[in-house]
């Protein structure tokens, strides 16, 4: 353990990554944990030590290594009870904030590693209550509850706004890329843990046999409980209702991804496009609450089955500007494309400005300048002053064109 810990603080990233793999293997196959949870000695030697290092250490190599290590711990140490899981998530959420300083300066690698670890914790521990059909694990593992998933989602969405730069360039993009992967994984985990909607949807339009609903009397035979006992049944059903994925979360995730799809960096656009493609086309589980799903899928050419190279600006921006007419996505797309139009890369700037100008010309010829007014009143001023003037969107509703 001591030699692995020593490797975790090594300045080289490859060594840190290998050390986290070694740590996971070591703690999974050795250091047994009883039914009561890990011993206090093991707890303070591993989890408490790592958390305090991430929170207090001034050496960036140490915060990078230990924040990555927290995500590779096995579930028996991460979540033996609610308090420990909370402290791990709190520590990583604070480390992932763009304002957090390490030794008086911001550290992009620590933020990125904290985001990767947050997602790893969620996938390792799992979301939602353990169902009765599952084998009860020994030692017991406390899964993430709604409050904790909300905390992780907020941290990831905040990381999508990380535009910090240093002499190496747009280092905030590392956090944004990690956060995109994280939001996708977390969305699928949350959907699977939610019990209030169906998780898969067969494509009824393509099925050859027609779909009929059986008669009411026939359906009654399938009821496990007679109708007289339906009150007690609904009570138990209510208790089992667990919601981890709702309309608000879906909208936030899609808006954040749309904004990144209009970004100036090829790698960021590519990742955003891939994540969006998987979210919108997945059938098991199917992502619910997607606004204007059919139009969105058609506009981004996801229904054709062809692989789109999202890093190609000449291809991405024209596709993206087809979706800007959906009111829900107008603001994130415009705020993303502003960065691309004014960027230094000629190919990105040219493609994005051509797409933006074409859209504005279309609006002007259609006499739909109220949309332009909305852009001016809301997006640009908000970006310029950010803190000075409140965004005041025009309340009038626009027809989808």
């Amino acid at each position, binding site marked *: 353990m001591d030699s692995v810990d020593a490797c975790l603080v090594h300045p080289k990233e490859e060594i840190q990554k290998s050390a986290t793999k070694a740590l996971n293997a070591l703690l999974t196959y050795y250091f047994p944990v009883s039914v009561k949870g890990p011993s206090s000695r093991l707890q303070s030697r591993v989890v408490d030590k790592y958390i305090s290092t991430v929170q207090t250490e001034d050496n960036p190599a140490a915060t990078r290594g230990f924040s990555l290590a927290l995500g590779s711990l096995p579930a028996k140490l991460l979540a033996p009870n609610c308090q420990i899981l909370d402290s791990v998530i709190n520590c990583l959420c604070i480390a992932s904030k763009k304002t957090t300083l390490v030794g008086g300066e911001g550290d992009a690698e620590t933020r990125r590693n904290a985001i990767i670890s947050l997602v790893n914790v969620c996938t390792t521990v799992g979301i939602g209550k353990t169902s009765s059909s599952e084998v009860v694990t020994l030692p017991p593992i406390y899964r993430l509850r709604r409050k904790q998933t909300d905390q992780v989602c907020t941290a990831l969405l905040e990381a999508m706004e990380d*535009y910090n730069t240093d002499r190496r360039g747009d280092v905030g993009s590392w956090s944004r890329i990690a956060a995109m992967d994280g939001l996708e994984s977390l969305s699928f985990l949350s959907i699977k843990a939610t019990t209030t909607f169906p998780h898969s949807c067969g494509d009824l339009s393509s099925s050859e046999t027609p779909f009929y609903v059986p008669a009411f009397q026939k359906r009654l035979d399938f009821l496990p409980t007679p109708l007289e006992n339906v009150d007690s049944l609904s009570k138990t059903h209510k208790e089992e209702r667990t919601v981890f994925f709702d309309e608000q979360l879906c909208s936030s995730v899609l808006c954040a991804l749309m904004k990144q799809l209009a970004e*100036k960096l090829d790698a960021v656009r590519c990742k955003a496009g891939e994540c969006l493609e998987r979210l919108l086309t997945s059938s098991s589980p199917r992502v619910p609450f997607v606004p204007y799903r059919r139009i969105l899928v058609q506009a981004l050419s996801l229904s054709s089955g062809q692989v789109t190279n999202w890093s190609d600006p000449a291809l991405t921006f024209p596709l993206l500007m087809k979706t800007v007419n959906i009111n829900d996505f107008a603001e994130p797309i415009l705020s993303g494309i*502003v*960065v*691309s*139009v*004014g*960027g230094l890369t000629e190919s990105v700037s040219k493609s994005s*400005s051509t797409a933006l*100008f074409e859209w*504005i*010309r279309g609006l*002007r010829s259609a006499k739909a*300048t109220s949309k*332009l*007014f909305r852009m*001016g*009143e809301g997006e*640009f*001023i908000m*970006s*310029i*002053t950010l803190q*000075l*003037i409140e965004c005041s969107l025009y309340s009038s509703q626009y027809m989808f064109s």
Partner: protein
Amino acid sequence: MLLPLLFTLDELISHGYLDELLSAENGTFLSSLMACLESEANGCSDVKRLLAIVTVALSLLRPHLETVDIVSFIKG
């Protein structure tokens, strides 16, 4: 984030795509824009940013758009 935004604004204004917004009767966009440019220019030591602000302000100087706001900003 501010520099790309200023470049984009300059592109849009110089191509005339924001004429409807700028010449709107209530003039809220123009006056808000000038107020923002002024607050950003005040105490700014970043030469690139200052140059971009000046470029945007100058691109607003057109006979049919000229207002008291712009003239006072340029004089100030």
